[in-house]
Protein backbone atom coordinates (compact mmCIF):
# COMPACT_ATOMS: atom_id res chain seq x y z
CA UNK A 1 0.00 0.00 0.00
CA UNK A 2 2.71 2.40 1.01
CA UNK A 3 4.76 1.38 -2.03
CA UNK A 4 1.75 2.07 -4.21
CA UNK A 5 1.28 5.48 -2.65
CA UNK A 6 4.90 6.29 -3.22
CA UNK A 7 4.57 5.19 -6.81
CA UNK A 8 1.57 7.46 -7.21
CA UNK A 9 3.43 10.43 -5.76
CA UNK A 10 6.38 9.67 -8.01
CA UNK A 11 4.09 9.51 -11.01
CA UNK A 12 2.48 12.84 -10.21
CA UNK A 13 5.94 14.38 -9.75
CA UNK A 14 7.00 12.94 -13.07
CA UNK A 15 4.00 14.41 -14.85
CA UNK A 16 4.70 17.81 -13.32
CA UNK A 17 8.37 17.49 -14.32
CA UNK A 18 7.39 16.53 -17.86
CA UNK A 19 5.10 19.55 -18.06
CA UNK A 20 8.01 21.68 -16.83
CA UNK A 21 10.30 20.25 -19.49
CA UNK A 22 7.84 21.04 -22.25
CA UNK A 23 7.07 24.50 -20.93
CA UNK A 24 10.68 25.50 -20.21
CA UNK A 25 11.58 26.83 -23.70
CA UNK A 26 8.79 29.40 -23.43
CA UNK A 27 10.16 30.84 -20.22
CA UNK A 28 13.92 30.36 -20.28
CA UNK A 29 16.40 31.81 -22.73
CA UNK A 30 18.12 29.67 -25.32
CA UNK A 31 21.43 29.44 -23.54
CA UNK A 32 19.87 28.18 -20.32
CA UNK A 33 17.96 25.60 -22.34
CA UNK A 34 21.16 24.33 -23.92
CA UNK A 35 22.88 24.18 -20.58
CA UNK A 36 19.97 22.27 -19.09
CA UNK A 37 20.19 19.85 -22.02
CA UNK A 38 23.73 18.77 -21.17
CA UNK A 39 22.89 18.64 -17.46
CA UNK A 40 19.96 16.35 -18.20
CA UNK A 41 22.10 14.11 -20.43
CA UNK A 42 24.63 13.80 -17.61
CA UNK A 43 21.83 13.12 -15.14
CA UNK A 44 20.85 10.08 -17.22
CA UNK A 45 24.46 8.92 -16.86
CA UNK A 46 24.24 9.52 -13.11
CA UNK A 47 21.10 7.39 -13.00
CA UNK A 48 22.90 4.49 -14.63
CA UNK A 49 25.49 4.36 -11.86
CA UNK A 50 22.89 5.22 -9.22
CA UNK A 51 20.98 2.13 -10.30
CA UNK A 52 23.75 -0.45 -10.56
CA UNK A 53 25.56 0.77 -7.46
CA UNK A 54 22.72 1.91 -5.23
CA UNK A 55 20.44 -1.04 -5.99
CA UNK A 56 22.63 -3.71 -7.55
CA UNK A 57 25.60 -3.15 -5.23
CA UNK A 58 28.00 -3.04 -8.18
CA UNK A 59 30.52 -0.21 -7.87
CA UNK A 60 31.73 0.50 -11.38
CA UNK A 61 34.62 2.97 -11.52
CA UNK A 62 34.45 2.88 -15.27
CA UNK A 63 30.87 3.79 -16.07
CA UNK A 64 32.38 6.18 -18.62
CA UNK A 65 33.34 3.14 -20.71
CA UNK A 66 29.69 2.64 -21.62
CA UNK A 67 28.98 6.34 -21.83
CA UNK A 68 31.91 6.81 -24.20
CA UNK A 69 31.12 3.72 -26.24
CA UNK A 70 27.54 4.93 -26.59
CA UNK A 71 28.77 8.35 -27.67
CA UNK A 72 31.21 6.93 -30.23
CA UNK A 73 28.69 4.34 -31.46
CA UNK A 74 26.15 7.10 -31.98
CA UNK A 75 28.68 9.32 -33.74
CA UNK A 76 29.90 6.62 -36.11
CA UNK A 77 26.39 5.35 -36.85
CA UNK A 78 24.90 8.82 -37.32
CA UNK A 79 27.61 9.77 -39.82
CA UNK A 80 27.18 6.52 -41.74
CA UNK A 81 23.39 6.19 -41.61
CA UNK A 82 22.68 9.89 -42.08
CA UNK A 83 19.76 9.39 -39.69
CA UNK A 84 19.89 9.57 -35.92
CA UNK A 85 17.16 7.04 -35.12
CA UNK A 86 19.19 3.94 -35.91
CA UNK A 87 22.23 5.62 -34.38
CA UNK A 88 20.47 5.91 -31.02
CA UNK A 89 19.70 2.19 -31.16
CA UNK A 90 23.39 1.50 -31.82
CA UNK A 91 24.35 3.76 -28.93
CA UNK A 92 22.38 1.44 -26.64
CA UNK A 93 23.15 -1.87 -28.33
CA UNK A 94 26.93 -1.67 -28.46
CA UNK A 95 27.42 -0.71 -24.79
CA UNK A 96 24.99 -3.49 -23.80
CA UNK A 97 26.98 -6.09 -25.72
CA UNK A 98 30.18 -4.75 -24.22
CA UNK A 99 28.64 -4.76 -20.74
CA UNK A 100 27.47 -8.33 -21.27
CA UNK A 101 30.97 -9.51 -22.21
CA UNK A 102 32.76 -7.54 -19.52
CA UNK A 103 30.11 -8.37 -16.93
CA UNK A 104 30.26 -12.06 -17.74
CA UNK A 105 34.04 -11.98 -17.53
CA UNK A 106 33.99 -10.32 -14.12
CA UNK A 107 30.85 -11.40 -12.36
CA UNK A 108 30.97 -15.05 -13.36
CA UNK A 109 34.64 -14.98 -12.41
CA UNK A 110 33.73 -14.11 -8.86
CA UNK A 111 35.20 -10.60 -8.94
CA UNK A 112 33.52 -8.20 -6.57
CA UNK A 113 33.88 -5.05 -4.48
CA UNK A 114 36.85 -2.85 -5.02
CA UNK A 115 38.38 -5.38 -7.40
CA UNK A 116 35.47 -5.02 -9.75
CA UNK A 117 35.97 -1.29 -9.44
CA UNK A 118 39.60 -1.59 -10.48
CA UNK A 119 38.80 -3.76 -13.49
CA UNK A 120 36.13 -1.37 -14.77
CA UNK A 121 38.48 1.58 -14.20
CA UNK A 122 41.27 -0.19 -16.06
CA UNK A 123 38.98 -1.03 -18.95
CA UNK A 124 38.06 2.63 -19.32
CA UNK A 125 41.78 3.50 -19.38
CA UNK A 126 42.36 0.89 -22.09
CA UNK A 127 39.56 2.36 -24.17
CA UNK A 128 41.00 5.82 -23.62
CA UNK A 129 44.44 4.74 -24.83
CA UNK A 130 43.07 2.86 -27.82
CA UNK A 131 40.69 5.54 -29.05
CA UNK A 132 43.36 8.15 -28.42
CA UNK A 133 45.70 6.46 -30.84
CA UNK A 134 43.25 6.49 -33.76
CA UNK A 135 44.41 9.74 -35.33
CA UNK A 136 44.92 9.57 -39.07
CA UNK A 137 42.90 8.63 -42.12
CA UNK A 138 43.57 4.98 -41.56
CA UNK A 139 41.20 4.69 -38.60
CA UNK A 140 37.86 4.98 -40.22
CA UNK A 141 34.56 3.13 -39.82
CA UNK A 142 32.57 3.62 -43.01
CA UNK A 143 32.60 7.36 -43.60
CA UNK A 144 33.40 8.23 -40.01
CA UNK A 145 36.96 9.14 -39.08
CA UNK A 146 37.67 8.39 -35.43
CA UNK A 147 40.12 11.29 -35.21
CA UNK A 148 42.20 10.19 -32.21
CA UNK A 149 42.76 12.77 -29.50
CA UNK A 150 41.13 15.53 -31.56
CA UNK A 151 37.88 13.62 -31.47
CA UNK A 152 35.02 13.66 -33.97
CA UNK A 153 33.62 17.12 -34.72
CA UNK A 154 30.34 18.15 -36.34
CA UNK A 155 28.42 14.93 -35.66
CA UNK A 156 24.83 15.03 -36.93
CA UNK A 157 22.44 15.75 -34.06
CA UNK A 158 18.99 14.21 -33.58
CA UNK A 159 16.52 14.44 -36.43
CA UNK A 160 12.83 13.64 -36.61
CA UNK A 161 12.55 9.83 -36.84
CA UNK A 162 12.19 8.91 -40.49
CA UNK A 163 12.97 12.41 -41.75
CA UNK A 164 16.75 13.01 -41.74
CA UNK A 165 16.24 16.44 -43.29
CA UNK A 166 14.40 17.70 -40.23
CA UNK A 167 17.05 18.44 -37.59
CA UNK A 168 15.74 19.15 -34.12
CA UNK A 169 16.20 22.73 -32.91
CA UNK A 170 18.01 23.29 -29.58
CA UNK A 171 14.63 23.70 -27.88
CA UNK A 172 13.34 20.42 -29.31
CA UNK A 173 16.60 18.70 -28.39
CA UNK A 174 16.04 19.89 -24.85
CA UNK A 175 12.51 18.52 -24.79
CA UNK A 176 13.76 15.15 -26.01
CA UNK A 177 16.60 15.06 -23.48
CA UNK A 178 14.50 16.25 -20.57
CA UNK A 179 11.74 13.76 -21.32
CA UNK A 180 14.32 11.00 -21.80
CA UNK A 181 15.60 11.70 -18.30
CA UNK A 182 12.09 11.41 -16.88
CA UNK A 183 11.36 8.23 -18.84
CA UNK A 184 14.59 6.59 -17.68
CA UNK A 185 13.83 7.65 -14.13
CA UNK A 186 10.30 6.23 -14.18
CA UNK A 187 11.49 3.09 -15.96
CA UNK A 188 14.00 2.46 -13.20
CA UNK A 189 11.40 3.17 -10.51
CA UNK A 190 9.09 0.58 -12.06
CA UNK A 191 11.94 -1.86 -12.46
CA UNK A 192 12.95 -1.51 -8.82
CA UNK A 193 9.37 -2.04 -7.68
CA UNK A 194 9.10 -5.20 -9.78
CA UNK A 195 10.10 -8.72 -8.76
CA UNK A 196 13.41 -8.22 -10.51
CA UNK A 197 14.05 -5.13 -8.40
CA UNK A 198 13.30 -7.00 -5.18
CA UNK A 199 15.64 -9.78 -6.16
CA UNK A 200 18.59 -7.50 -6.91
CA UNK A 201 18.06 -5.62 -3.67
CA UNK A 202 17.94 -8.94 -1.83
CA UNK A 203 21.23 -9.86 -3.48
CA UNK A 204 22.75 -6.51 -2.54
CA UNK A 205 21.73 -7.03 1.07
CA UNK A 206 22.94 -10.60 1.33
CA UNK A 207 24.23 -12.51 -1.62
CA UNK A 208 24.39 -15.91 0.10
CA UNK A 209 20.87 -15.68 1.42
CA UNK A 210 19.51 -14.78 -1.99
CA UNK A 211 21.46 -17.64 -3.56
CA UNK A 212 20.08 -20.08 -1.00
CA UNK A 213 16.57 -18.91 -1.90
CA UNK A 214 17.24 -20.06 -5.41
CA UNK A 215 18.25 -16.87 -7.21
CA UNK A 216 21.55 -17.00 -9.04
CA UNK A 217 23.22 -13.74 -7.94
CA UNK A 218 25.61 -13.81 -10.88
CA UNK A 219 22.81 -13.83 -13.41
CA UNK A 220 20.94 -10.98 -11.77
CA UNK A 221 24.06 -8.92 -11.26
CA UNK A 222 24.98 -9.37 -14.90
CA UNK A 223 21.52 -8.19 -15.96
CA UNK A 224 21.80 -5.17 -13.68
CA UNK A 225 25.22 -4.37 -15.08
CA UNK A 226 23.87 -4.59 -18.65
CA UNK A 227 20.92 -2.34 -17.89
CA UNK A 228 23.37 0.18 -16.42
CA UNK A 229 25.45 -0.09 -19.59
CA UNK A 230 22.40 0.50 -21.77
CA UNK A 231 21.40 3.62 -19.87
CA UNK A 232 24.95 4.98 -19.86
CA UNK A 233 25.21 4.36 -23.61
CA UNK A 234 21.93 6.17 -24.18
CA UNK A 235 23.26 9.06 -22.10
CA UNK A 236 26.26 9.09 -24.45
CA UNK A 237 23.99 9.60 -27.44
CA UNK A 238 22.16 12.41 -25.63
CA UNK A 239 25.51 14.01 -24.80
CA UNK A 240 26.69 13.92 -28.41
CA UNK A 241 23.35 15.31 -29.53
CA UNK A 242 24.00 18.29 -27.30
CA UNK A 243 27.62 19.03 -28.20
CA UNK A 244 27.84 17.45 -31.69
CA UNK A 245 31.31 16.42 -30.62
CA UNK A 246 33.05 13.53 -28.91
CA UNK A 247 36.71 13.04 -27.97
CA UNK A 248 38.61 10.38 -26.01
CA UNK A 249 38.59 12.47 -22.80
CA UNK A 250 35.08 11.05 -22.44
CA UNK A 251 36.85 7.88 -21.20
CA UNK A 252 39.22 9.70 -18.86
CA UNK A 253 39.60 9.20 -15.13
CA UNK A 254 38.18 12.62 -14.29
CA UNK A 255 34.71 11.88 -15.60
CA UNK A 256 34.63 8.42 -14.00
CA UNK A 257 35.33 10.00 -10.65
CA UNK A 258 32.75 12.72 -11.23
CA UNK A 259 29.93 10.22 -11.74
CA UNK A 260 30.74 8.54 -8.44
CA UNK A 261 30.74 11.94 -6.78
CA UNK A 262 27.32 12.83 -8.19
CA UNK A 263 25.88 9.62 -6.77
CA UNK A 264 27.47 10.07 -3.37
CA UNK A 265 26.57 13.73 -3.02
CA UNK A 266 23.00 13.12 -4.10
CA UNK A 267 22.57 9.99 -2.02
CA UNK A 268 23.29 6.37 -2.81
CA UNK A 269 20.37 3.96 -2.74
CA UNK A 270 17.98 6.53 -4.18
CA UNK A 271 17.28 7.45 -7.78
CA UNK A 272 16.48 11.10 -7.33
CA UNK A 273 19.75 11.56 -5.39
CA UNK A 274 22.13 10.96 -8.31
CA UNK A 275 20.06 13.30 -10.47
CA UNK A 276 20.21 16.06 -7.85
CA UNK A 277 23.91 15.46 -7.21
CA UNK A 278 24.66 15.61 -10.92
CA UNK A 279 22.70 18.80 -11.58
CA UNK A 280 24.19 20.49 -8.54
CA UNK A 281 27.80 19.62 -9.33
CA UNK A 282 27.45 20.46 -13.02
CA UNK A 283 26.01 23.81 -12.17
CA UNK A 284 28.77 24.44 -9.65
CA UNK A 285 31.62 23.51 -11.99
CA UNK A 286 30.17 25.82 -14.61
CA UNK A 287 29.78 28.66 -12.15
CA UNK A 288 33.35 28.31 -10.91
CA UNK A 289 34.81 28.83 -14.40
CA UNK A 290 33.43 32.35 -14.56
CA UNK A 291 35.52 33.58 -11.63
CA UNK A 292 39.25 33.83 -11.36
CA UNK A 293 39.94 34.52 -7.70
CA UNK A 294 40.50 30.92 -6.65
CA UNK A 295 41.67 27.87 -8.50
CA UNK A 296 38.67 25.84 -9.67
CA UNK A 297 40.08 22.53 -8.42
CA UNK A 298 40.62 23.99 -4.98
CA UNK A 299 36.97 25.01 -4.56
CA UNK A 300 35.63 21.71 -5.88
CA UNK A 301 37.89 19.69 -3.60
CA UNK A 302 36.92 21.71 -0.56
CA UNK A 303 33.22 21.24 -1.31
CA UNK A 304 33.71 17.50 -1.63
CA UNK A 305 35.51 17.18 1.68
CA UNK A 306 32.90 19.22 3.49
CA UNK A 307 30.22 17.02 2.00
CA UNK A 308 31.80 13.76 3.03
CA UNK A 309 32.28 15.00 6.57
CA UNK A 310 28.97 16.78 7.11
CA UNK A 311 26.43 15.15 4.77
CA UNK A 312 27.78 11.61 4.50
CA UNK A 313 24.50 10.05 3.37
CA UNK A 314 24.05 12.47 0.52
CA UNK A 315 21.46 15.15 -0.04
CA UNK A 316 18.32 13.19 -0.84
CA UNK A 317 18.35 10.81 2.17
CA UNK A 318 19.39 13.63 4.51
CA UNK A 319 16.52 15.82 3.38
CA UNK A 320 14.09 12.91 3.74
CA UNK A 321 15.38 12.24 7.26
CA UNK A 322 15.01 15.91 8.16
CA UNK A 323 11.47 16.05 6.85
CA UNK A 324 10.56 12.85 8.68
CA UNK A 325 11.95 14.07 11.98
CA UNK A 326 10.03 17.35 11.64
CA UNK A 327 6.76 15.66 10.75
CA UNK A 328 5.89 12.98 13.26
CA UNK A 329 2.43 12.93 11.68
CA UNK A 330 3.74 11.32 8.53
CA UNK A 331 4.90 8.38 10.57
CA UNK A 332 1.54 7.75 12.14
CA UNK A 333 -0.01 8.01 8.69
CA UNK A 334 2.06 5.18 7.39
CA UNK A 335 1.37 3.26 10.56
CA UNK A 336 -2.34 3.72 9.91
CA UNK A 337 -2.10 2.62 6.35
CA UNK A 338 -0.14 -0.43 7.42
CA UNK A 339 -2.81 -1.20 9.97
CA UNK A 340 -5.43 -0.90 7.30
CA UNK A 341 -3.62 -3.33 5.11
CA UNK A 342 -3.44 -5.76 7.95
CA UNK A 343 -7.08 -5.29 8.73
Amino acid sequence: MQKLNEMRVALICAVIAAAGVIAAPYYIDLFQIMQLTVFAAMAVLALSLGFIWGYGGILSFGQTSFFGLGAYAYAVAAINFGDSTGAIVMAILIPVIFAALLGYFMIYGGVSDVYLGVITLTVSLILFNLVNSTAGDFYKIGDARLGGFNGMPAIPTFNMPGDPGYILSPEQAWTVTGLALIVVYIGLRVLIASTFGRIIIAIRENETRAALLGYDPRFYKLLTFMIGGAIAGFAGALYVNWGAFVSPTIFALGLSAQIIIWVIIGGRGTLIGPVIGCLLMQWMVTAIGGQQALDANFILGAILIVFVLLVPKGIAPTVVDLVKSRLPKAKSDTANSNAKVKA
Partner: protein
Amino acid sequence: MDIAIIVGLDVISGIASLVLISAGLAVIFGMMKIINLAHGEFLMLGAYATVLSVSAGVNIWLAMLVIAPVFVGLVGVIVERCLIQFLYGRLVDTMLATWGLSLVIVGGTTMLFGNTIVGVASPLGGFSVGEYQSSLYTPFLAVMAILVMTGVWAVMRYTRAGLIARAVMQNPDMAATLGVNPARVYMATFGAGAAISGLAGGLLAPVAGVVPTMGAAYIAKAFITVVGGGTSILWGLITASGLFGFINQIAAFFTTPVFGEVILFIAAVVLIRMLPTGISGKFFKGRL
Protein backbone atom coordinates in the same frame (compact mmCIF):
# COMPACT_ATOMS: atom_id res chain seq x y z
CA MET B 1 74.38 -8.66 -25.75
CA ASP B 2 74.89 -5.07 -24.64
CA ILE B 3 71.36 -4.28 -25.69
CA ALA B 4 70.09 -7.19 -23.57
CA ILE B 5 71.79 -5.68 -20.52
CA ILE B 6 70.31 -2.29 -21.27
CA VAL B 7 66.83 -3.72 -21.72
CA GLY B 8 67.32 -5.68 -18.51
CA LEU B 9 68.15 -2.42 -16.78
CA ASP B 10 65.02 -0.82 -18.22
CA VAL B 11 62.94 -3.66 -16.85
CA ILE B 12 64.53 -3.28 -13.43
CA SER B 13 63.97 0.44 -13.46
CA GLY B 14 60.35 -0.06 -14.56
CA ILE B 15 59.76 -2.43 -11.67
CA ALA B 16 61.59 -0.18 -9.23
CA SER B 17 59.58 2.87 -10.16
CA LEU B 18 56.34 0.91 -9.82
CA VAL B 19 57.45 -0.25 -6.38
CA LEU B 20 58.33 3.30 -5.36
CA ILE B 21 55.17 4.98 -6.63
CA SER B 22 52.95 2.28 -5.12
CA ALA B 23 54.66 1.58 -1.78
CA GLY B 24 53.01 4.37 0.22
CA LEU B 25 49.59 3.44 -1.12
CA ALA B 26 50.24 -0.24 -0.39
CA VAL B 27 51.14 0.44 3.23
CA ILE B 28 47.96 2.43 3.75
CA PHE B 29 45.76 -0.02 1.84
CA GLY B 30 47.30 -3.11 3.42
CA MET B 31 47.14 -1.84 6.97
CA MET B 32 44.00 0.21 6.97
CA LYS B 33 41.97 -1.17 4.04
CA ILE B 34 41.35 2.32 2.75
CA ILE B 35 42.34 3.69 -0.62
CA ASN B 36 44.00 7.07 -0.63
CA LEU B 37 43.20 8.80 -3.89
CA ALA B 38 45.35 11.76 -2.87
CA HIS B 39 48.32 9.43 -3.18
CA GLY B 40 49.44 10.98 -6.47
CA GLU B 41 49.41 14.39 -4.81
CA PHE B 42 51.55 13.07 -1.94
CA LEU B 43 54.11 12.11 -4.58
CA MET B 44 53.76 15.56 -6.09
CA LEU B 45 54.26 17.24 -2.71
CA GLY B 46 57.42 15.18 -2.18
CA ALA B 47 58.70 16.30 -5.56
CA TYR B 48 57.88 19.94 -4.84
CA ALA B 49 59.51 19.76 -1.41
CA THR B 50 62.66 18.48 -3.09
CA VAL B 51 62.69 21.02 -5.90
CA LEU B 52 61.98 23.97 -3.61
CA SER B 53 64.61 22.87 -1.07
CA VAL B 54 67.21 22.46 -3.80
CA SER B 55 66.48 25.87 -5.24
CA ALA B 56 66.78 27.27 -1.70
CA GLY B 57 70.31 25.90 -1.65
CA VAL B 58 69.79 22.64 0.24
CA ASN B 59 71.89 19.65 -0.80
CA ILE B 60 69.90 17.51 -3.21
CA TRP B 61 70.42 14.25 -1.27
CA LEU B 62 69.26 15.85 1.93
CA ALA B 63 66.24 17.29 0.12
CA MET B 64 65.25 13.99 -1.49
CA LEU B 65 65.97 11.57 1.29
CA VAL B 66 65.09 13.61 4.38
CA ILE B 67 63.08 16.75 3.71
CA ALA B 68 60.61 15.21 1.24
CA PRO B 69 59.57 12.23 3.41
CA VAL B 70 59.48 14.22 6.64
CA PHE B 71 57.40 17.00 5.10
CA VAL B 72 54.90 14.70 3.40
CA GLY B 73 54.79 12.45 6.48
CA LEU B 74 53.70 15.48 8.51
CA VAL B 75 51.10 16.35 5.90
CA GLY B 76 49.89 12.76 6.17
CA VAL B 77 49.51 12.95 9.94
CA ILE B 78 47.60 16.22 9.67
CA VAL B 79 45.34 14.77 6.98
CA GLU B 80 44.69 11.70 9.10
CA ARG B 81 43.78 13.79 12.16
CA CYS B 82 41.61 16.28 10.31
CA LEU B 83 39.93 14.02 7.80
CA ILE B 84 40.60 10.30 7.61
CA GLN B 85 40.00 9.49 11.26
CA PHE B 86 36.32 10.33 10.86
CA LEU B 87 35.91 7.93 7.98
CA TYR B 88 37.34 4.59 9.11
CA GLY B 89 35.40 1.59 7.85
CA ARG B 90 33.82 3.63 5.06
CA LEU B 91 35.88 2.66 2.02
CA VAL B 92 33.96 4.68 -0.53
CA ASP B 93 33.68 7.78 1.64
CA THR B 94 37.42 7.76 2.21
CA MET B 95 37.99 7.52 -1.49
CA LEU B 96 35.71 10.45 -2.11
CA ALA B 97 37.24 12.55 0.66
CA THR B 98 40.77 11.82 -0.48
CA TRP B 99 39.77 12.63 -4.03
CA GLY B 100 38.52 15.98 -2.76
CA LEU B 101 41.77 16.34 -0.89
CA SER B 102 43.74 15.68 -4.05
CA LEU B 103 41.87 18.49 -5.82
CA VAL B 104 42.52 20.83 -2.92
CA ILE B 105 46.22 20.00 -2.93
CA VAL B 106 46.49 20.47 -6.70
CA GLY B 107 44.58 23.75 -6.55
CA GLY B 108 46.51 25.00 -3.53
CA THR B 109 49.87 24.14 -5.03
CA THR B 110 48.89 25.89 -8.25
CA MET B 111 47.90 29.02 -6.37
CA LEU B 112 51.13 29.01 -4.36
CA PHE B 113 53.71 28.03 -6.95
CA GLY B 114 52.02 28.54 -10.30
CA ASN B 115 51.43 25.82 -12.81
CA THR B 116 54.65 25.91 -14.75
CA ILE B 117 56.97 22.92 -14.80
CA VAL B 118 59.77 23.01 -12.26
CA GLY B 119 62.46 20.47 -11.55
CA VAL B 120 66.01 19.60 -10.57
CA ALA B 121 68.72 17.97 -12.61
CA SER B 122 69.53 14.36 -11.91
CA PRO B 123 72.49 14.19 -9.53
CA LEU B 124 74.37 11.15 -10.84
CA GLY B 125 76.10 10.87 -14.17
CA GLY B 126 75.75 8.20 -16.81
CA PHE B 127 77.62 4.97 -17.47
CA SER B 128 78.14 2.87 -20.54
CA VAL B 129 77.62 -0.78 -21.36
CA GLY B 130 79.51 -1.39 -24.59
CA GLU B 131 78.29 1.29 -26.90
CA TYR B 132 75.08 1.94 -24.99
CA GLN B 133 74.67 4.50 -22.29
CA SER B 134 72.37 4.63 -19.36
CA SER B 135 71.87 6.79 -16.32
CA LEU B 136 73.41 5.86 -12.97
CA TYR B 137 70.24 7.19 -11.48
CA THR B 138 68.37 4.12 -12.78
CA PRO B 139 70.25 1.55 -10.66
CA PHE B 140 70.11 4.05 -7.81
CA LEU B 141 66.29 4.04 -7.99
CA ALA B 142 66.34 0.23 -7.96
CA VAL B 143 68.53 0.24 -4.85
CA MET B 144 66.20 2.72 -3.17
CA ALA B 145 63.20 0.54 -4.00
CA ILE B 146 64.92 -2.43 -2.40
CA LEU B 147 65.86 -0.33 0.63
CA VAL B 148 62.29 0.88 1.08
CA MET B 149 61.00 -2.69 0.89
CA THR B 150 63.63 -3.97 3.28
CA GLY B 151 62.95 -1.08 5.62
CA VAL B 152 59.23 -1.81 5.75
CA TRP B 153 59.94 -5.49 6.27
CA ALA B 154 62.47 -4.90 9.06
CA VAL B 155 60.23 -2.48 10.90
CA MET B 156 57.27 -4.82 10.69
CA ARG B 157 59.25 -7.93 11.56
CA TYR B 158 61.65 -6.82 14.24
CA THR B 159 60.34 -3.78 16.07
CA ARG B 160 57.69 -3.48 18.71
CA ALA B 161 55.88 -0.87 16.62
CA GLY B 162 55.83 -3.37 13.76
CA LEU B 163 54.45 -6.08 16.02
CA ILE B 164 51.66 -3.80 17.18
CA ALA B 165 50.98 -2.73 13.62
CA ARG B 166 50.68 -6.33 12.49
CA ALA B 167 48.40 -7.11 15.40
CA VAL B 168 46.08 -4.24 14.54
CA MET B 169 46.17 -5.25 10.90
CA GLN B 170 45.05 -8.78 11.72
CA ASN B 171 42.49 -8.02 14.36
CA PRO B 172 41.95 -4.47 15.56
CA ASP B 173 39.37 -5.43 18.21
CA MET B 174 41.62 -8.00 19.81
CA ALA B 175 44.53 -5.57 19.74
CA ALA B 176 42.41 -2.91 21.39
CA THR B 177 41.37 -5.36 24.11
CA LEU B 178 45.03 -5.98 24.80
CA GLY B 179 45.62 -2.30 25.42
CA VAL B 180 46.72 -1.04 22.04
CA ASN B 181 45.14 2.17 20.83
CA PRO B 182 44.22 1.43 17.18
CA ALA B 183 43.55 5.10 16.45
CA ARG B 184 47.16 5.95 17.22
CA VAL B 185 48.40 3.04 15.13
CA TYR B 186 46.30 4.20 12.21
CA MET B 187 47.63 7.73 12.55
CA ALA B 188 51.20 6.47 12.56
CA THR B 189 50.52 4.16 9.62
CA PHE B 190 48.98 6.88 7.54
CA GLY B 191 51.90 9.16 8.36
CA ALA B 192 54.37 6.43 7.45
CA GLY B 193 52.59 5.68 4.19
CA ALA B 194 52.58 9.37 3.34
CA ALA B 195 56.28 9.66 4.21
CA ILE B 196 57.11 6.78 1.86
CA SER B 197 55.09 8.50 -0.88
CA GLY B 198 56.97 11.70 -0.16
CA LEU B 199 60.27 9.88 -0.45
CA ALA B 200 59.16 8.38 -3.77
CA GLY B 201 58.10 11.82 -4.99
CA GLY B 202 61.46 13.25 -4.00
CA LEU B 203 63.27 10.45 -5.81
CA LEU B 204 61.17 10.98 -8.93
CA ALA B 205 61.73 14.75 -8.99
CA PRO B 206 64.98 14.58 -11.02
CA VAL B 207 63.47 12.31 -13.69
CA ALA B 208 59.98 13.79 -13.93
CA GLY B 209 58.38 17.03 -15.04
CA VAL B 210 57.24 18.48 -11.71
CA VAL B 211 53.87 20.25 -12.02
CA PRO B 212 50.90 20.45 -9.63
CA THR B 213 48.95 18.02 -11.80
CA MET B 214 51.71 15.41 -12.07
CA GLY B 215 50.06 13.07 -9.54
CA ALA B 216 47.39 12.11 -12.07
CA ALA B 217 49.96 10.29 -14.21
CA TYR B 218 50.79 7.95 -11.33
CA ILE B 219 47.61 7.36 -9.39
CA ALA B 220 45.91 4.92 -11.75
CA LYS B 221 49.03 2.78 -12.07
CA ALA B 222 49.70 2.77 -8.35
CA PHE B 223 46.08 1.92 -7.66
CA ILE B 224 46.09 -0.98 -10.13
CA THR B 225 49.41 -2.30 -8.84
CA VAL B 226 48.32 -2.23 -5.22
CA VAL B 227 44.95 -3.84 -5.82
CA GLY B 228 46.50 -6.37 -8.19
CA GLY B 229 48.98 -7.23 -5.48
CA GLY B 230 46.38 -7.66 -2.78
CA THR B 231 46.57 -6.77 0.86
CA SER B 232 49.96 -8.22 1.73
CA ILE B 233 52.06 -5.10 1.77
CA LEU B 234 55.38 -6.58 0.77
CA TRP B 235 54.66 -9.69 -1.25
CA GLY B 236 51.69 -8.21 -3.01
CA LEU B 237 53.61 -5.12 -3.98
CA ILE B 238 56.74 -6.94 -5.10
CA THR B 239 54.96 -9.54 -7.19
CA ALA B 240 52.52 -7.11 -8.80
CA SER B 241 55.23 -4.53 -9.55
CA GLY B 242 57.48 -7.24 -10.90
CA LEU B 243 54.83 -8.62 -13.19
CA PHE B 244 53.41 -5.32 -14.45
CA GLY B 245 56.79 -3.61 -14.69
CA PHE B 246 58.24 -6.48 -16.70
CA ILE B 247 55.31 -6.68 -19.12
CA ASN B 248 55.11 -2.93 -19.55
CA GLN B 249 58.79 -2.34 -20.27
CA ILE B 250 59.25 -5.33 -22.55
CA ALA B 251 56.14 -4.40 -24.53
CA ALA B 252 57.24 -0.77 -24.70
CA PHE B 253 60.66 -1.76 -26.00
CA PHE B 254 59.48 -4.16 -28.67
CA THR B 255 56.35 -2.30 -29.78
CA THR B 256 55.38 1.24 -28.81
CA PRO B 257 54.77 2.99 -25.50
CA VAL B 258 51.02 3.00 -26.23
CA PHE B 259 50.99 -0.78 -26.45
CA GLY B 260 53.19 -0.92 -23.37
CA GLU B 261 50.44 0.85 -21.45
CA VAL B 262 47.57 -1.08 -22.99
CA ILE B 263 49.25 -4.44 -22.40
CA LEU B 264 49.95 -3.50 -18.79
CA PHE B 265 46.29 -2.67 -18.27
CA ILE B 266 45.10 -5.86 -19.98
CA ALA B 267 47.47 -7.88 -17.82
CA ALA B 268 46.01 -6.20 -14.75
CA VAL B 269 42.44 -6.99 -15.80
CA VAL B 270 43.26 -10.62 -16.47
CA LEU B 271 45.22 -10.92 -13.26
CA ILE B 272 42.46 -9.52 -11.09
CA ARG B 273 39.97 -11.78 -12.87
CA MET B 274 42.10 -14.87 -12.21
CA LEU B 275 42.98 -13.90 -8.67
CA PRO B 276 40.11 -11.76 -7.41
CA THR B 277 41.84 -10.99 -4.13
CA GLY B 278 45.13 -10.02 -5.68
CA ILE B 279 48.25 -12.09 -6.03
CA SER B 280 49.00 -12.08 -2.34
CA GLY B 281 45.46 -13.15 -1.48
CA LYS B 282 46.20 -16.39 -3.29
CA PHE B 283 49.82 -17.16 -2.63
CA PHE B 284 50.94 -15.16 0.38
CA LYS B 285 47.86 -15.15 2.53
CA GLY B 286 48.45 -13.69 5.94
CA ARG B 287 52.05 -12.75 5.22
CA LEU B 288 53.45 -9.28 5.28
